[in-house]
Every structure is written in C-alpha cells, then in structure tokens.
C-alpha cells in the first residue's frame, strides 16, 4: 500500500518539478533546438545562451538586486530585533496590539501608496536610486521580521533570564549568553525570508528605477514581449536570476516554513 502512495508522490513531485527542469534544459540548448515542436529533449548541450546572457550587461541589475536585498535585510534586522525584544522579553504595555498593528500594515496593498511614494522620490531626487528601494523593502519586510523575531525571542526561558539578573549579569552579558543562542536560528530564518522577498520584488522597482538602479526582476521584464528566437536566452536569464533564491531556499527548507508562516509554524 505504501508503495502505491510513494509512486503517487513521486509522480506529483516530478510533475511540479517538470517546468523547472524544462527551464534549465531549454537554457542549455541552442536557440533552434529550444523552439521545436515536438520538443527536442536530447538536443546537444551548449552554454551559448549563458554566454549571450552574460554578454548583455546583466551585472548592473544583478548587483543592484544584491545591494537592495542585503541592504534592506540588514536594516530590517537592526530595527526588528530591538522591537521584538520590547515585544517579548521586556514587554511594553499593550504589546499584542503593537504586534497586530505591524501585521495590519502587511494587509494594506502597497499599490495604494505608490503615487505619494513616487512623488516623494521625484521631489527629493531619489528616483532611480537604490537607497530609496532599500528603505521601501525595509518597510515591506519589517512587520514579517518583527513577528518572526518575536516568536523566537518568546522562547527564551523567563526563569533563566531572572536567574541571570539575580546573578548580577548585565544587559550585554544576558543578551550574549542567554538571548543570542535562542535568537540565532530566528535571525537566520528572518534574513532568508527578507532576502527572498526583496530579491523578488517587481512593482516598486519597476516604477521607481530606471537605467541606473534597475533590479534583476526589472531586467527580466525586458523579455515580456517575444521577438525572434530567444527562448533559450530567456530561460538562461530566468535560471541565473532565480539561482540565489533556489540555493538559499533549498539550503534552509525548514526556516522557509517558519518564516512564511510568520513564526506560527515551527
């Protein structure tokens, strides 16, 4: 009986994976071999599309994406960790209301604030500037990070904190010896989620950046209309842009679940 379910599971897994496998395979074919009907599975492997992709100046958008993602993730952590501390370990009054305020900002569609944000960028000369995206991505990910970090810090055992205080341990010692070991996996999960969401973001980047600060997803939108034989190159570009997320996500599968569920699923 279990064998039958195993076969079903394998079938489902292969079905869901097939488009990804097809993307990788197509990116390794020559353009004429990529666009055939029926598909040519066994066509010779070539790295021409990757060569063509890296010849077409993809580095500025990739580096912009990397700066925006890492910059905003660092800023998010700097803001979220103290906030989570004030919502879990040394709690402020009405802390659960504050927590739900953070969550409620995630439920307002970002598109509704797009115009004022665009106008601010225009008047302050921040259009097409990566720093402006860093600020926006920080605000986009901060509520998630506060929720996540709070759910991790809430696991710091209160008795140990009190014992540390009785033993005369200072704030720094307590943070380093008691809080940090519990918080580190949380920081890793939070960073992973913030990095992925910033790396994937399109709407703000598309509206607020141009030739200088365009990110990798904006670069990909150049492939929306099809002209001539370009399928292998599209697939190569899609593989390269998705690679950081795929690697990070596979490496930290369990952290991914925690992060996406705002720490509700452990």
């Amino acid at each position: 009986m279990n064998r039958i379910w195993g076969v079903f599971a394998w079938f489902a897994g292969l079905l869901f994976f097939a488009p990804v496998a097809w993307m990788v395979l197509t990116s390794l074919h020559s353009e004429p071999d990529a666009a055939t009907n029926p598909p040519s599975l066994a066509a010779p492997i070539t790295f021409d599309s990757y060569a063509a992709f890296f010849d077409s100046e993809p580095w500025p958008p990739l580096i912009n994406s990397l700066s925006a993602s890492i910059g905003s993730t660092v800023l998010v952590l700097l803001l979220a960790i103290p906030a989570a501390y004030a919502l879990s370990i040394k709690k402020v009054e009405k802390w659960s209301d504050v927590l739900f305020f953070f969550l409620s900002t995630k439920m307002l569609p970002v598109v509704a604030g797009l115009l004022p944000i665009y106008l601010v960028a225009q008047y302050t000369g921040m259009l097409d500037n990566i720093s402006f995206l860093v600020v926006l991505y920080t605000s986009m990910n901060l509520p998630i990070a506060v929720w996540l970090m709070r759910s991790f810090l809430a696991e710091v055992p209160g008795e140990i904190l009190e014992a540390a205080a009785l033993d005369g341990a200072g704030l720094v010692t307590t943070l380093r010896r008691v809080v940090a070991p519990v918080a580190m996996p949380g920081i890793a999960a939070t960073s992973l989620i913030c990095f992925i969401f910033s790396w994937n973001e399109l709407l703000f980047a598309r509206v607020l950046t141009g030739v200088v600060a365009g990110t990798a997803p904006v670069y990909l939108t150049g492939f929306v209309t099809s002209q001539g034989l370009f399928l292998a190159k599209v697939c190569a570009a899609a593989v390269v842009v998705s690679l950081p997320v795929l690697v990070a996500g596979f490496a930290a599968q369990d952290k991914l679940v925690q992060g996406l569920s705002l720490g509700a699923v452990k």
Partner: protein
Amino acid sequence: MTAVREVGATAKPTPPARTRQLTAAARWARRAPLLPALIFTIVVTQLPFVATLIISLMRWNSLDPANRGFAGVDNYTAVFTDPDLRSAIGTTVVLTATVVLVSLVLGLGLALLLDRKFAGRGLVRTMLIAPFLVVPVAAALLWKHALYNPEYGLFNGVLTWLFGADAAQPEWISGMPLIAVEASLVWQWTPFMMLILLAGLQSRPQDAVEAARIDGATAWQVFRYLTLPHLRQYLELGALLGSIYVVQNFDAVFTITSGGLGTANLPYTIYQTFYQAHDYGQASAAGVVVVVGSIVIATFALRVVSSLLREEVRG
C-alpha cells in the same frame, strides 16, 4: 473516540497577572527599543496612505499641472463609473479566491502524500518546493514563453507527442487568459500551502491516531475526525497568508497577459492609471477604494488570525 482532544485548543494556564507598577522612566526605557521600528513603519507605510487620501480629493493630472485644485468627490465618481476599475475588482476577487482555494486543496493532497514514508521522500519534498523558489517574474516568463507558447511551448509539444502531428494546438493564453494566469500562480503557491499543512500534519498527536486505529477506525474516519480538525487552523493560516500575497499580485498579470484579455486586477489597473493616464487624482481615488476594501477584508482576516495566533502569543 472521546479521548481525542484538539491539542492546539487546549487552554494554557494563564500566568498570574503582573501588577507590578512601572515608573514613567522605566516604561519609556521599555518602549525605547520598539520606537525606531514603530516610527519607521508609521512614516513609510501609513503617511503615504494619508497623502493618497488627500490627492484623491484633488484635480491633478501630471500632463496638465497648471490646472491643479480641489475636486471634491469627482475622482470617486469617476472611479465608481469606470468599467475598467469595476471589472478589476471582480477579477481580483476571482483570481485570489481561485488561486488560494486550488493551491490549498492541491497542497493538502501533497502534504498527505508526503506525510507517509516512502523511498526518496526528502528528494520529492525538495522537488515540490522548487516552484515556490523561482523568482515570480522568471516563473511568469517561463510559463508564458516556454510552456504556453502555441508554436514551441512545452504544453503543445506534449500534445504533439501524445497525439501525433495533427494534435490540437490550443492558444493557451488568448484562449483562456485568466486560467493561464491562475495556473501559473497555483503552481507557485501549492508548495507554500503544502509546507504549512505538512508542518501541521507532523505536529498531529500520534497517540490519538494509534488509539483510533486500534479501536478499528478506518483511514477515512481518522482523516475526517482527527486529521482534518487538527489541520483546521493550519488551513486557515495558509488561506489567510496566501490571500495577503495573491491579492497584491502584479508580476504574473503584468508578465503573462500585460493586463489584457480581462485579466487586469486592481494592482495592475492602478499601476496603469498612474503610469499611462497620468491622472494622479483618479489613481489615488482608486487606491483609497482598494484600501477601504482591504480594511474590510483585513478586519475579518485579523479576527481569524488573532484567534489563531493570540493563543500562541499568550503562551
């Protein structure tokens, strides 16, 4: 079966209320670490909505900046009589509901499969997560060009394989535009639902299941009376989080159909009003309508999520 109890719903003993009074200085010392994040969030996420509200009452077209002034509710009248915007509201509801429900059902099926032991389970799980880890724009491009393309896409290629040279070769995107967008999103969101539900299944109390089996319960009875009630809160969580993300979807609509053929949802329509028509007043009014709608949904959703998470928060 009476011994079966929902573990997540078990009331935790409430900790003794802390009545210790804090001095004003001590209260501010506690608030201090919270303030930077709170102020940052208010400034960057709330002020733009206030500005949107103000601009929505103004006559302001960037192509005619001299004619700027107070417009009253004119922009709102325009929004509610605009057929594009009305259909965008419907499209958003249909798109979000379809994607969330279908991926939830598929995710449940996959989670139940993966909950069993079989050879290569880890590898299958990794393969199933992959769609969620493809950058959304890249995934949309993949579906549009490599799968849906009527001449050389994989779908029609497979049809040719199966049925020979005179197989039907449908135009996937122009023939069923909304379904085409939904299918690509279902592909990306099913792994997300699966991960949450699988975590739910694995936190299921095993002894209750064993006891029910010994008492002669069938597999269906175990699923219906034990597994499903336990999974309820995970299903709600998946539906809620999925809705938050899918309702704001821009990437797939923008990439696969460019908002054409009746697939323009609200985020795409507002983007377009603002980007192409340059009517700032009307775009803002549309934004306010979206926000009001979201607040209605969010109030409901927050009630669901708070009943779920407050338990955990209190714990």
